[in-house]
């Protein structure tokens, strides 16, 4: 059966299941199934199945929702600049995400089935709380499919002039629907962490809107929105890098080099504000329940943030390495090359500060303390200010790397360019000093205020980026552009574009594990206990292994999807013409 239809059928069935009990027992408390009530298959881990399917669904959905967002932006850039290359690239991005769409629906359908099969009480309860929202979700899903297909297939038919604006309107509707889907799904996940609109025993007391608008909903919305964009950018970047490596013709290599560069920018732009969104999410978690917040930062999950640091560190290093290699594309780039080593020192230094756990080697006593179900804290929070300082500096210097490349192909013509340069340098120097000072202040204040000290740091980081971009924007207005030799890139640089999606995929799954673990042994925090045999929080190693397997499966799927999208553009040609036909795939 068609996966879309299958999902629809499952959701419709779920809706029917929901309506009936709801009419009869509206004010019942949440069900409290005992261990025996969970359907189980001997020797088979239901949780791992649900985990795998939901993560897979999320990977695909994140990708499929993110691509149209930046495709629309690139399309607009194409219209404004009148440069056809933008439009071709946008179209090609779309093509990749189209092939992924049906897999998203398939994974989603599989997830729904697995959830109803293994966690019927929880799903029944969620349906009761969210009433007809499931139906809205199903409708949105249908609408998303329609918009997506129309948007993609009308691309060439509505390409120029007024028609282009119709096309972009369809794109806007597509993205609106896509975001609505994301927000609805987030409402359920967030409700499980911070339930609202229900009494202490779980009886429904409020409206669906109250349950939707629970304390963690909006922080989660923002966080996932940004992460999706970064993620989508990273994946199409891998596509571009792969094509770059395998193409022979100079034209195509130039095209894919440029596509890889753009993807990298998208990934970095989505990524830069993520720590900020992360702070907000964490702050809201603390405000909702200090206990949950401490479970995340200081409890059994504390070590995970060390892994997170390694992942984010490798993402930033890879993205920067790629940008530095990019200086080779312009002739003026060489004049910036000497600075690269200083940036590299900051990046590597920051990375090291970040990954150094508070106590790298545990004493047997500490190990014993960790053995309990809720043990004493390790205290990485104790040096949080140092880590925050490191990550903010890394973000600032990543932006600097990008700015250097941008400037390397532009010679300013405005009279005040010297003053402008001085202003930018001053901005960086003062900003960095401020970040460091706030870090030192955070270090010497008591723990309670440490989190507060990180806010000025993030604000400084964002200000540097915004003001540097504005000054540059004015200064380089009407600048003489020098040539960028797209395609003049090393093979090694392309491998950086593979680190990004691998690290992002793994990171996303890791954060998913953390988010779910915050509920500890609750399906719905404080309201519905998880009494299943698998209610425990797995060790980092166990989680890591599962995450790796899921990531490997996703990689296999992505290779297949890339292959599909390439296949779609491959035309077999009659023997005689084959010699003159250009290689397939370029900007079709």
């Amino acid at each position, binding site marked *: 059966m068609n996966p879309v239809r299958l999902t629809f059928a499952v959701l419709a069935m779920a809706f029917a299941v929901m309506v009936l009990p709801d009419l009869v027992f509206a004010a019942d408390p949440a069900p409290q199934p005992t261990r025996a009530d969970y359907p189980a298959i001997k020797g088979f881990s239901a949780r791992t199945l649900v985990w795998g399917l939901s993560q897979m669904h999320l990977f695909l959905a994140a990708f499929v929702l993110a691509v149209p967002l930046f495709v629309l932006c690139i399309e607009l850039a194409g219209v404004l600049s009148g440069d056809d290359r933008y439009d071709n690239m946008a179209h090609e991005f779309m093509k990749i995400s189209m092939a992924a769409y049906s897999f998203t629906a398939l994974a989603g359908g599989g997830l729904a089935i697995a959830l109803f099969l293994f966690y019927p009480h929880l799903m029944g309860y969620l349906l009761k709380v969210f009433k007809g929202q499931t139906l809205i979700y199903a409708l949105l899903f249908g609408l998303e499919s329609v918009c997506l297909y129309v948007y993609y297939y009308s691309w060439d038919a509505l390409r120029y002039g007024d028609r282009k604006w119709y096309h972009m309107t369809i794109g806007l509707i597509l993205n609106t629907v896509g975001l609505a889907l994301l927000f609805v799904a987030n409402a359920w996940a967030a409700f499980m962490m911070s339930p609202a609109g229900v009494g202490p025993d779980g009886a429904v007391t409020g409206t669906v809107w109250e349950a939707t608008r629970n304390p963690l909903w909006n922080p989660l919305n923002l966080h996932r929105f940004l992460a999706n964009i970064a993620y989508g950018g990273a994946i199409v970047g891998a596509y571009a890098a792969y094509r770059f*490596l395998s193409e022979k013709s100079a034209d195509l290599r130039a095209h894919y080099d440029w596509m890889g560069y753009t993807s990298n920018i998208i990934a970095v732009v989505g990524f830069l504000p993520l720590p900020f969104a992360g702070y907000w999410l964490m702050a809201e978690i603390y405000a909702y329940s200090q206990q949950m917040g401490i479970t995340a930062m200081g409890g059994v999950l504390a070590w995970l943030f060390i892994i997170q640091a390694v992942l984010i560190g490798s993402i930033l290093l890879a993205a920067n390495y790629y940008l530095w290699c990019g200086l080779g594309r312009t002739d003026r780039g060489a004049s910036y090359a000497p600075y690269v080593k200083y940036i590299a020192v900051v990046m590597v230094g920051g990375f090291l500060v970040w990954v150094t756990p508070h106590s790298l080697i545990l004493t047997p006593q500490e190990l014993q303390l960790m053995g309990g*179900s809720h043990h004493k804290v390790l205290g990485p929070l104790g040096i949080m200010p140092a880590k925050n300082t490191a990550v903010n500096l890394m973000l600032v210097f990543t932006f600097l790397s990008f700015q250097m490349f941008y400037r390397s192909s532009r010679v300013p013509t405005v009279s005040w360019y010297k003053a402008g340069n001085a202003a930018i340098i001053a901005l960086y120097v003062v900003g960095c000093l401020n970040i460091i000072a706030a870090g030192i202040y955070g270090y010497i204040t008591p723990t309670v205020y440490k989190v507060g000290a990180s806010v000025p740091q993030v604000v400084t980081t964002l200000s540097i980026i915004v003001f540097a971009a504005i000054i540059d924007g004015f200064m380089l207005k009407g600048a003489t552009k020098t040539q960028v030799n797209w395609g003049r890139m090393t093979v090694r640089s392309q491998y950086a574009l593979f680190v990004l999606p691998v690290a992002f995929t793994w990171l996303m799954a890791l954060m998913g594990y953390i988010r779910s673990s915050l509920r500890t042994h609750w399906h719905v925090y*404080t309201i519905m206990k998880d009494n299943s045999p698998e209610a425990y929080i797995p060790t980092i190693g*166990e989680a890591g292994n599962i995450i790796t397997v899921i990531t*490997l499966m996703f990689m296999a799927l992505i290779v297949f999807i890339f292959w599909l999208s390439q296949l779609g553009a491959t035309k077999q040609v009659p023997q005689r013409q084959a010699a003159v036909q250009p290689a397939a795939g370029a900007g079709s």
Partner: protein
Amino acid sequence: MTLVRVLAFSVVVLLAYTLFANILPQVQSDPPTDEAPVAADGLDMPAMIAWGERLFSGKGTCTLCHNDLGRAPDLLKLNLAETWADRLGNANYEGEAKGEEGAAAIEIYLRESMVDTSAYVVPGFGKKGTNDTVSPMPAVDAAPISLSEVEMNALIAFLQDRTGVDVTVPLPTGDDGEDVAGDDEDGEEEGPAESAQVALDKYTCSACHDVNDSGADAGPPLHSLGAKLGRDGIREAILDPNATIAEGFEADMMPDDFGDQMRVSELDMIIDYLMTLDAKGDAQ
């Protein structure tokens, strides 16, 4: 070829992350068990206090916040006998312990701190922006911690005992027993063993130790322990086997959760019995 190289590279990166996750300390967090050492009957005060201590770091999750990192008063270091006067004398204190004295006041104050957490907020620890009027501490008798009345008594007993003041909370009575064992998931509670010998078999002691003529040698023979360890020594050896390790044996061999499995009456029976065994393992 390119594809193979790219995939191999990606897999190597992936495996590096996986390896890293596996070399970090591994902790699995299990859902809290009720940790009730006994059914209704026969809980004595030392057992109650020991239970309170387990609740403090276990089900109660108190150590999550109450530790030396400054998120909440470090209850394990705090000398309540000295601070309580300070707390109750504070101009802002309007709670129920006002006007009470000594250990009784401490009991009321502790209970109040647990169930009505915002009744009095220790200055500097209130929720951000509330000017120390709202405590970030969740009421421990509600979800997610959900302690029962008896469990809170055990915690109070533990905290009072640490401070060196008299323990004023009552021992659980028969009725509370329902409460203690009530949450037991599988309800597979059996009755207590009827004799020490039966208990020694029931808890598989005789599978490791030479006792009841079992001749087992995974652990030291349980002979003439009365002279060697004394009552308290035996109690500790059973409840916290790694506290001291018998000569010639290694740590972590003997299970350390007997305290959770046994009833106090059974523990006492076993200790009484072991006290009577001579060097050949015969009862005197």
